[in-house]
């Protein structure tokens, strides 16, 4: 008992602020809100851009000023909003992206299950998938054009072709994600192979499936635009190609910016679906994407 009495006063003494000998420091960046940090980078970027152009370091044909680009963006925006020819072109590209992504998901997921779940798929199919995946897929574009023509079909095919592989890999990896304990547990419950797949392996692997989907969402945009560059048609990529050939760089810049909005929407919808579906994996979603 006497021990307690001896110790307690000294504990109280050291409990005051002046006695803190090792103060916890907060880094400056941790106290800055994200929007402010992002605005800072944006201002630096545009400022550098403006100075490079106004100092005449680069020819205006190669790099337009931020102001010119903004003006062109407003022009393109008006055209899009008033249902001009650009809206038609954008709509074509959006359709290519949506169809291409849907096709890639269907094929990629099925192949992923085949490769990830069956020994046959892993032994006999996977090596071919790896071999094809290492090929530069854009090189297939002329083939798709020869097979499917100059319409949207050849673009959809290239977009799907590029986006399929990450989805296959993500799905296959996801199916291997379940640990030994979960497998054993399902075995003790007498679960069938189908039940194990649907009720355990697939949900366990959803985060990896979505990682594949996110890489695929980026690839599908690249595929559609590359297809339009190489296979003509009436999409947004064609507008970019024409503007570039006319050395209309402000137009190229603003078209790319609008196009990236489409890409952002596709990507964001994948992330949104992931948050709804893989709600138990929240922290990972945040770290991966932003």
């Amino acid at each position, binding site marked *: 008992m006497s021990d307690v009495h001896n110790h307690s006063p000294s504990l109280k003494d050291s409990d005051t602020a002046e006695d803190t000998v090792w103060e916890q420091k907060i880094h400056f960046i941790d106290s800055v809100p994200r929007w402010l940090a992002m605005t800072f980078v944006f201002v630096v970027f545009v400022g550098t851009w403006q100075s490079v152009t106004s100092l005449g370091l680069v020819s205006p044909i190669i790099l337009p000023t931020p102001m010119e680009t903004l003006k062109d963006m407003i022009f393109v925006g008006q055209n899009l909003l008033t249902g001009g020819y650009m809206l038609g072109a954008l709509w074509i590209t959006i359709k290519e992206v949506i169809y291409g992504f849907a096709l890639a998901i269907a094929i990629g997921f099925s192949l992923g299950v085949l490769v990830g779940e069956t020994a046959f798929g892993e032994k006999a199919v996977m090596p071919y998938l790896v071999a094809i995946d290492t090929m530069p897929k854009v090189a297939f574009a002329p083939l798709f054009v020869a097979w499917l023509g100059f319409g949207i079909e050849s673009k959809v095919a290239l977009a799907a072709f590029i986006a399929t592989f990450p989805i296959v890999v993500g799905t296959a990896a996801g199916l291997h994600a379940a640990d030994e304990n979960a497998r*054993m547990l399902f075995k003790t419950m007498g679960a069938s192979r189908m039940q194990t797949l649907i009720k355990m392996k697939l949900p366990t692997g959803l985060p990896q499936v979505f990682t594949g989907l996110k890489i695929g969402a980026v690839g599908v945009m690249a595929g559609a635009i590359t297809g339009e560059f190489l296979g003509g048609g009436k999409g947004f990529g064609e507008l970019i190609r024409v503007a570039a050939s006319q050395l209309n760089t402000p137009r190229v810049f603003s078209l790319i910016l609008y196009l990236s909005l489409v890409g952002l929407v596709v990507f964001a919808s994948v992330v949104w679906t992931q948050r709804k579906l893989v709600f138990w994996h929240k922290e990972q979603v945040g770290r991966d994407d932003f």
Partner: protein
Amino acid sequence: MNAAAAQEFSGAPLGTPVYELTHLSKTYARNLVVALEDINLTLRKGSFTSVIGSSGCGKSTLLKIMAGLIPPTKGRVILQGLPVTGPRRDIGMMFQQATLFPWKTAVENIVLPIEIRDGKAAAKQAMGKAHELLDIVGLKGFENVYPNELSGGMAQRASICRMLITEPAVLLLDEPFSALDELSRDMMNMELQRICHEQDATAFLVTHSIQEAVILSDEIVVLKPRPGRIAEIVKVDLPRPRTLDMMTTPKFGAIVDYIRGLLDKGEEM
């Protein structure tokens, strides 16, 4: 004392045989390692048996064969009069990890074995029973909580419920609390004793901890390694219900020392 004699000596006062293992051997074909050799063991109704031995003595293999997860090379396992040839409903199993699925709430995790065997409708009907079980293990109010909001001990409590939902005749426990801290482990062991008593369950525990084995068991099967054989079946005649303060009694200490001696001998071989 040889294995057969030990068995006769220890089994007498308990209930009817539930599990009967006769001349059980397991050789792994891939590397010809003899994991188990001539295991003979009878578990009686309502008894608590532990198996203890150094790593590599084949205790996990034994448990897997008993659970119908892998076939033995020789010998047979009879559970409630029927040979075990695969996973069975009357076997409840629990592992070191709780392995609750994060996309299901606690109660949904608990009725999962019913969902797998009898479908969603049956699982829904079993919800009431799941609630009762959660109440028994002290998790009332956590029915609709997702597993990542549960502590390690709470998760293991939920996995006890999942094991009990099919009303199994035997509980096979593979180091169920060894991932928990010591305080929680002691508490969970007492809880396990209470549940086994209330359900009149026949339990078989694989453990690394001599103390844990002694405080819980009626009989302790000491395995010696390479190949895994029964060195001795030690009877624990501490009164029931067991309490944690029994762990400080001389009798408890004597049994622990005796088993440690057996295990040390096993290591030399």
